[in-house]
């Protein structure tokens, strides 16, 4: 295109478009290479550490000692590399304008390969996404891209990494849109497709064109068989829920342990995993070879049931104890085992003809993925890409939706977002958080001039603080981090009761609402009506960090200013008198 006649700004913008396109392809290739290298590193580590026939002692020592080492690395150098990587990538995209520290990709690669390779029951896809996104973020910084461009590299790299890690390029694009961006209509679809295709080409040229699983041909033997898939959906929902609740519960317990134990927590998980591996070596690492066997009818009913339970427990322990690895692969593993088991039972006891158990294992994979990861469209496309058979759509959608509905009903926040919440990070809910551009947000309404009273301050000190203003509540905390609030009636009552010298911690209220800076005026008013006249505005990436406060008077003053300004601008002299 001839750009000589265009203005300078337009030419620069055009150049940025060209650079972004080139970067998209390059990032697709680099993220794909990183994902392939990560896969190879996991396998290599596993062979190196376990050999061909590991002894029971080795089963226990390898994950324990390796987790001790990675625990040290994760605590001292790479705290962002714990867990899956998908929630962190989502947070980076939504809350930090795509900014991921440069060390994260390296740290995730190292700790992920060591954790998964040393036998922890975790997946490689989530870490691959974080590694890819981390590299993309660094590259974006080198190119000094605009914040919006740098941010858009995150889903692009995520799609590329997943495409190479799981060999399903279409599902990878859907995953980036559905899970990372949270918007299936995102304008980035073109870039993610380009990166995903570039990545999968790289992956196939290195590892060959062999699919990740040998998938049996899918047949719906009888329309009545759809009933069996309803059962599979119900079971999938229950297993998804057990997994999500169990993971959050145990992670909560680990997080509740004293801070000084953080370094050895992964090793505690390592010991337990070692014991599980003695009895069920099949749950080690990613475990796709056993998923393949379940898909191809290579496992007995009892084996599948036992492996389903063992994998569920092992993954919960590995993840909760703070190791680095994902839940993408474990959810597929659980689905294959649960689905395969249901398939065998249906084959034996259903009063109608049914297909091979392998077909149920296949649909089960999608069902558990939809229930745990909460990305039903990704799940459908992923299984479709594995089978390349349209017949699988209807049973898959039935089972997926049932599982998704059960999981969502009993665990409204998705697992990835719930994990972030445990880390005090609040992600915007897709579709409802973004106010229209012409509405006011909490950041417009809040005042940054607020008082935080230390928790060890006395009731009398708080009373004095109330005396200087007409606030109905005050935030309690230190260094911009709040731990609760106290209300004016509480303080007055305490004084009357002779508790003037008592510390505020005895009165602290923790059960109240907050908003984030991007929340709309409507939501602010709604939440303010539930609070005692004070609404903290907190950071999404650290919900205890107060960025400002909102009071009813503050809103009135803000609106008054706006109206005054509008009135002034609508006067005949254009507001100039």
């Amino acid at each position, binding site marked *: 295109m001839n750009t000589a006649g265009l203005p300078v700004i337009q030419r620069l913008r055009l150049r940025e478009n060209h650079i972004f396109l080139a970067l998209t392809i390059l990032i697709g290739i680099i993220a794909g290479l990183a994902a392939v*290298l990560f896969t190879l590193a996991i396998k290599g580590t596993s062979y190196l550490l376990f050999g061909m026939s590991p002894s029971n002692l080795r089963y226990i020592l390898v994950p324990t000692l390796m987790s001790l080492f990675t625990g040290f690395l994760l605590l001292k150098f790479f705290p962002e590399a714990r867990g899956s990587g998908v929630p962190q990538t989502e947070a980076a995209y939504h809350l930090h304008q795509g900014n991921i520290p440069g060390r994260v990709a390296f740290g995730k690669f190292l700790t992920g390969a060591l954790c998964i390779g040393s036998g922890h029951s975790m997946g490689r896809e989530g870490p691959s996404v974080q590694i890819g996104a981390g590299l993309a973020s660094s590259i974006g910084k080198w*190119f000094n891209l605009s914040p919006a461009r740098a941010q858009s590299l995150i889903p692009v790299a995520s799609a590329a990494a997943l495409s190479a890690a799981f060999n399903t390029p279409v599902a990878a694009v859907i995953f980036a849109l559905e899970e990372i961006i949270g918007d299936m209509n995102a304008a980035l679809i073109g870039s993610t497709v380009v990166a995903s295709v570039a990545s999968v080409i790289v992956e196939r040229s290195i590892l060959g064109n062999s699919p990740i699983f040998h998938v049996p041909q899918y047949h719906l033997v009888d329309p009545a068989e759809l009933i069996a898939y309803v059962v599979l959906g119900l079971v999938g929902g229950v297993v998804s829920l057990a997994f999500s609740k169990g993971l959050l519960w145990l992670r909560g317990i680990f997080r509740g342990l004293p801070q000084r134990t953080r370094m050895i927590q992964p090793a505690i998980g390592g010991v337990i995993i070692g014991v599980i591996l003695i009895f069920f070596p099949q749950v080690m690492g990613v475990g796709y070879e056993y998923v393949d066997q379940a898909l191809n009818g*290579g496992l007995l009913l009892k084996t599948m049931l036992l492996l389903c339970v063992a994998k569920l427990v092992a993954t919960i322990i590995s993840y909760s104890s703070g190791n680095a690895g994902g839940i993408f692969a474990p959810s597929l593993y659980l689905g294959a085992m649960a689905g395969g088991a249901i398939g065998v039972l249906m084959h034996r006891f259903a009063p109608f003809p049914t297909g091979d158990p392998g077909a149920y294992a296949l649909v089960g994979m999608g069902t558990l993925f939809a229930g745990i990861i909460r990305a039903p469209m990704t799940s459908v496309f992923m299984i479709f890409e594995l089978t390349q058979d349209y017949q699988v759509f209807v049973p898959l959608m039935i089972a997926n939706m049932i599982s998704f509905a059960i999981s969502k009903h009993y665990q409204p926040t998705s697992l990835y977002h719930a994990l972030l919440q445990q880390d005090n990070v609040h992600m915007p809910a897709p579709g409802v958080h973004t106010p229209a551009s012409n509405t006011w947000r909490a950041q417009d309404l809040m005042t940054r001039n607020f008082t935080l009273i230390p928790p060890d301050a006395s009731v009398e000190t708080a009373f004095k603080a109330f005396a200087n203003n007409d606030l109905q509540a005050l935030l309690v905390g230190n260094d911009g981090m709040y731990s609760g609030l106290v209300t004016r009636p509480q303080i007055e009552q305490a004084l009357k009761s002779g508790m003037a010298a008592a510390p505020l911690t005895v009165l602290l209220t923790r059960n109240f609402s907050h908003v984030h800076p991007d929340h709309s005026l409507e939501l602010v008013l709604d939440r303010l009506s539930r609070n005692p006249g004070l609404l903290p505005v907190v950071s999404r990436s650290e919900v205890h960090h107060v960025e400002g406060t909102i009071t009813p008077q503050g809103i009135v003053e803000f609106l008054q200013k706006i109206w005054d300004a509008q009135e002034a601008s609508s006067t005949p002299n254009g507001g100039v008198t």
Partner: protein
Amino acid sequence: VEVKNIPRILHNELVLLVALSIVAFGVFVFTRNMAARQQRMEAGIAATWYERGERLIASGQVEPAIQAFRRATAESRDTQKYVLALANALSAGNHESEAEDLLLQLRESDPENAEINIALARLSAKQGETDEAVRYYQSALYGRWVGDQVDARRSQLREELIGFLLQHQQRQLASSELLILEAGLPNDAASHIEVAKLFLQAGDLRRAFRNYSAAAQLDLHNVDARRGAGETSFQLGDYAQAVHYLRAELELDPSSTTSQKQLALAERVLEEDPLAPHLTDQERKSRLLADFQRSLQRLENCLGQTADGKASAELQSLKAEALAMQPKLGRNKKLDFDTVRSGAGLIFRMEEAAAHCGEPPVEDEALLLIGREHKGALP
């Protein structure tokens, strides 16, 4: 400011892009090498597991062998040999359903593969699915074979199929396969003997003899070939051939009592047959008289032992017939061929009637064989 910066920005971005591309290419080459190295390592591990599985299965440890083959297929799932070994081990460990699933998947991708069809055939045979087994055996026979000694292995499989068919009383199909097998036989005694045995099982004595005699000619010192040729020719009623081969066998293995007895019987048949061709009248008459006296004697002895009224009456009737015939066989009478035939017929009936009086002596057994040989020509 922006206009001044354009060349520098362009320069920097281009350099960065080129540098990144070079780095990406370097990482690509490195990753590719790593992947190839790891694939070789995986192939080595898979081969080790496979060999371990083979050793375990050879020592009869089926379940550990299954585990070893599972590991081999997990490491290298595209290696058909490992999947086949796993399927065969599963079948041996009575996990037929799983083995069948594996084999059917393999067959789906390679329907003409002989090894897969053989495994399926054996599995179906084990499960008692005769038609399926035959279908897979035939698919294997006419499928694609790889490796060494294809013809020999194919013949062995055909023999296995024939054995299976005979076991399931499908003689007609077995005979068809035997004819194909015979047509492609290598020129060695052992192969002919094997085929002869199968023909014997299929009830085809003539082709069995043909192969035994071919084997005897190919290997002059083969006792089994001579014995087989002798026995089959004896059963075919070709006593001259039987005598020839049995004598030849006993030259090599004089201790065989069965062959000795059979030889003695065959020699008697040859010596006592009054209807044998190329005899002089005198010789024919002499044989007839000797045989007649012998069978009458046996009838009378039997009559003395028989208390049953009906059997006794039959023997009495035959004795009366014999006594009536006796004058016609006088020493000085010239016998025409019809009289010889009638006399031989009576001798055969007397021997048959006396059969219920216990095991006949070798002379009477020979008379019975002579009667059976000429049954169609006797009145």
